[in-house]
């Protein structure tokens, strides 16, 4: 048995001694410090706990003051209900809370916190002070906790609400203190954490100060305005508001156009009943909803606020509550998948060809904005981008030029691009959020196409008959409102995919038997997986048999994939299957395999096409669903409108 230790002052021997040690009850302060290890990881965790307490206390203004990245001081001031002096001592006791009254309450948690651990934990690893005054009291009271030594409450001058100061975090846990990063990095975490915590609480105004300077000022505002604080500024228009509710569940938020998907989940935020969570069911539902619209391994941008009855979820499974357990996870999965998918299918997803960066007006405006904001950002989060912390969603790390601009400093409305709004044919382009919260889906200026048909096919483009091939890779054709540029590989891939899908639904694919079966090294787990996917493989014309303890043999392979190597293909398939256990379900697996097949069988960039082939490709484009993106999710088609051209050639007013 080895006892966890926090204090390096008494080094334990690395090798366990032979002589037996006595089992004894740990002291309360040690228990608290161990608990603190789970809850309090760094200054940002303190901020999270305290701000959540303030929100639970019904505060409408919360100010967070930080000194030296939180190593020196963390002060959270709220105007909430306050703590009466009689309860002050209990506030620092562990397992003491005002948020649960009975056993039943634990199974219907409506507050952010509930365990009564946070303050006790913080108090055990720092020097904390609570100054609080309740509404009905004339005076405030303060109480100190120095690493577990709690003073008696004393009268002190205070406004209504609670102020908690945490100084010298980890002063008695040198090992932890040593692991803290530099002040900018820690502040970056705080700032990120605070943004995450504030997003679902637009009714609360937040202010963040570092070393006495206001870094962030978020006034109380509407849902959508607050969410935009975490939305990448340069992609304001590539967003679709979403709002679905039934008797019990409510899903709202923003989802990004497929082109906004990023290799990390930094633009993906999921909130459950106001609390940021990480949930693989919801992530999966999102990924599924964007299947075929984004490249694999990319995370679609989305901020989802999910409200469900508290008794339908168990938040008591993770110390910092980022993971939860749903009573009915299938229902949540279904809700997210269906709502997001429907929203996407009802929208035109063809990205615009004109790059924003080359628009002179935009550039000037952005540079202006950037100049104004740069100073703030530099002081606020210079180290944030270099942290080696795990890839938590970071709304502060913008893309390229817009670095940091996701954090909205100024309550003023965002830069308005009215000319684009009125001129762009994309029905999803909205200027700003409509305040009409009952129908945010209809915020777009043009009517929604029915989700059942016309997905991805831009109604404003009539089928072009011919196109020019550029560099044996791209096709350029005239459209009603300008021109379209087609990636021949991506489009052909999508067409092949849809045709294969239709084909497989009719019957098995034709397959060529192999004279000399190809053997593939396979792990025992992969071989076990074969049983599950065998029926699917057979439909696709792939016959695979176990061949010895750690290899398998491919016996036949679809004849239209004759240019591929069966062994390599099957190996890739098994590796993918092994990594994404969830996708072993028949239908999803089928999609993945067809993706792979279509990609490999389609014409490649660099293949010259005859006019007849081009014509056939364009004609088939109209017949195929979701032709706007290849099955991997990359766009097949870009659009350049006459308006864009006129703008670029300076034929219009600007």
């Amino acid at each position, binding site marked *: 048995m080895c006892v966890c230790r926090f204090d390096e002052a008494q080094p334990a021997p690395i090798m366990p001694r032979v002589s037996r040690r006595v089992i004894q009850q740990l002291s309360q302060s040690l228990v608290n410090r161990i608990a603190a290890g789970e809850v309090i990881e760094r200054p940002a965790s303190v901020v999270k706990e305290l701000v959540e307490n303030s929100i639970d206390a019904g505060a409408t203004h919360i100010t967070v003051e930080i000194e030296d990245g939180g190593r020196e001081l963390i002060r959270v001031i709220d105007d909430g209900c306050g703590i009466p002096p009689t309860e002050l001592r209990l506030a620092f006791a562990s397992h003491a809370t005002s948020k649960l009254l009975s056993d039943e309450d634990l199974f219907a948690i409506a507050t952010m916190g509930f365990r009564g651990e946070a303050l006790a934990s913080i108090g055990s690893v720092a020097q904390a002070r609570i100054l609080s005054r309740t509404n009905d009291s004339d005076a405030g009271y303060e109480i100190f906790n120095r690493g577990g030594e709690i003073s008696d409450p004393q009268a002190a001058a205070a406004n209504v609400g609670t102020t908690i100061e945490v100084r010298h975090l980890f002063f008695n846990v040198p090992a932890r203190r040593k692991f803290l990063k530099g002040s900018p990095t820690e502040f970056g975490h705080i700032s990120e954490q605070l943004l995450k915590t504030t997003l679902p609480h637009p009714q609360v105004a937040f202010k963040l100060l570092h070393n006495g300077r206001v870094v962030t000022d978020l006034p109380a505002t509407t849902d959508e305005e607050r969410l935009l604080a975490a939305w990448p500024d340069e992609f304001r228009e590539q967003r679709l508001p979403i709002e679905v509710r039934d008797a019990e569940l409510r899903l709202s938020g923003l989802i990004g156009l497929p082109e906004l998907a990023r290799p990390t989940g930094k633009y993906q935020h999921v909130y459950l009943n106001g609390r940021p969570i990480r949930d693989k069911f919801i992530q999966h539902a999102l990924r599924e909803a964007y299947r075929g619209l984004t490249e694999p391994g990319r995370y679609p941008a989305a901020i989802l606020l999910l409200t469900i009855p508290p008794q339908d979820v168990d938040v008591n499974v993770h110390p910092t509550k980022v993971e939860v357990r749903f009573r009915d996870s299938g229902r949540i999965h279904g809700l997210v998948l269906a709502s997001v998918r429907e929203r996407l299918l009802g929208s035109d997803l063809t990205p615009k060809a004109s790059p924003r960066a080359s628009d002179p007006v935009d550039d000037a405006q952005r540079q202006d904005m950037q100049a104004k904001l740069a100073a703030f950002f530099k002081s606020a989060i210079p180290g944030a981008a270099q942290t080696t912390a795990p890839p938590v969603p970071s709304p502060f790390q913008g893309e390229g030029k817009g670095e940091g601009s996701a954090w909205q400093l100024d309550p003023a409305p965002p830069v308005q691009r009215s000319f684009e709004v009125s001129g762009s044919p994309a029905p999803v382009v909205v200027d700003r959020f409509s305040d009409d919260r009952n129908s945010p889906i209809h915020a777009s200026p043009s009517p929604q196409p029915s989700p059942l048909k016309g997905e991805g096919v831009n109604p404003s483009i009539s089928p072009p008959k011919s196109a020019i091939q550029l560099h044996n890779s791209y096709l350029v054709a005239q459209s009603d409102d300008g021109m379209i540029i087609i990636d021949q590989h991506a489009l052909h891939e999508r067409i092949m995919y849809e*045709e*294969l899908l239709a*084909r497989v639904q*009719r*019957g*098995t*694919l*034709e*397959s*060529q*038997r*192999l*004279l*000399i079966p*190809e053997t593939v090294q396979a792990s025992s787990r992969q071989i076990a997986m074969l049983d599950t996917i065998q029926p699917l493989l057979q439909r696709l*014309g792939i016959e695979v048999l176990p061949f010895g303890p750690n290899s398998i043999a491919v016996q*036949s392979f679809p*004849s*239209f994939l*004759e240019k591929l*190597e*069966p*062994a*390599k293909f099957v190996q890739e398939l098994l590796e993918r299957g092994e990594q994404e256990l969830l996708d072993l379900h028949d239908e999803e697996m089928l999609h993945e395999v067809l993706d792979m097949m279509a990609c490999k*069988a389609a014409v490649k960039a660099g293949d010259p096409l005859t006019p007849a082939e081009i014509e056939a490709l364009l004609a088939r484009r109209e017949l195929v669903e979701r032709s706007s993106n290849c099955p991997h999710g990359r766009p097949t088609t870009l659009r350049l409108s006459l308006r864009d051209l006129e703008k670029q050639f300076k034929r219009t007013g600007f």
Partner: protein
Amino acid sequence: MKVICNRGALLEALTVAGNVVAARTPKPVLQCVKLTAADDRLTIAATDLEVAIRYSDPQVQIEQPGEVLLPADKFRDIVRESIDDTLSIEVVNDQAHIKGQDSHFKIYTQAVSDFPPVPDFEGEPDFEVPGGLLKQLIGQTLFAAARESTRYAFNGVLIVAKNKKLNLVSTDGRRLAMAKSDLAANGKLGKDGAQAIVPAKALNLVDKLIDDPEEPVQFQMRENQIIFHTSSATLTSNLVEGQFPPYEDVIPKDADKTMTAATADFLSAIRRAALLTTEESKGVRMSFTKKGLQLTSRSPESGEAEVNFACKFDGADVEIGFNPTFLTEALRVVDSDEISLELTAPNRPGLLKGGQNFLYVIMPVNLQ
């Protein structure tokens, strides 16, 4: 070095050598040819480190022996575009001067010492084969080799010389071709004979080197190289590493159904039946009965084809699918007027035989 060359002969030599010169390489020296003037001939050498060739051109007049390294492309273009019957090549310091009647090209040469050694044919051949026969063996097998398989052995042709037999075998994992011939003498080969997997590129070049079907091609087989020698050229190739599959095991021996037909007619019937196949449904359905063979193909997009082919068939009725391309490719290289196709079951390989010396194993297609 100073030589006067017959332009036509030099161009031919450069064209042959140009097939070996590396197209893209990080080593520029591999894009050169080496000229050696000695012993009344000009030897042109080129290599891409896999295959190396020495081609000798006797139609030269050597005024001063020597050697030089020239960029293959530029040199060949100069020789091709020149209008003279003869060209003179003279190397002074690090420049080569190529002169015609009204032209003078100066090319900067590269250091000869940088060029990798290109082996010559030395000693006795292991065995030799008439050029015409070798051409036929190559033609009957090379097409069935894989192009870019990661099973490297499939990218070459297996040459087996043993017991006064020379056999070439190739496969891409779906079909297998085997061409057999007799050796006049076992030559220097031991009792166990010799075998090697030769890259397709090398055999292609050997095929091009053979002009005269009567002229023998000499072989030397080393541990990791094979050397072909004709009167004008020596071609050395590295061997393909890897294990050639046990080809004798996959040749069916239990076939109980046999079709015999005229080669040209069978080829025509397959080609017609294949007209309505598509990328995704390539297979042609073949239904063998006592009455003959019915070939059908069907594609959901285009339509259906049916060919009723009169032929002799012994055995129980069977229906089997084949990729028509695999069959037509083989039927084109058969050198006999009649072929036989032996079958066992719809999921078992078929065996095509053309004369005594050509075998072709083909796996069927599972039709929908």
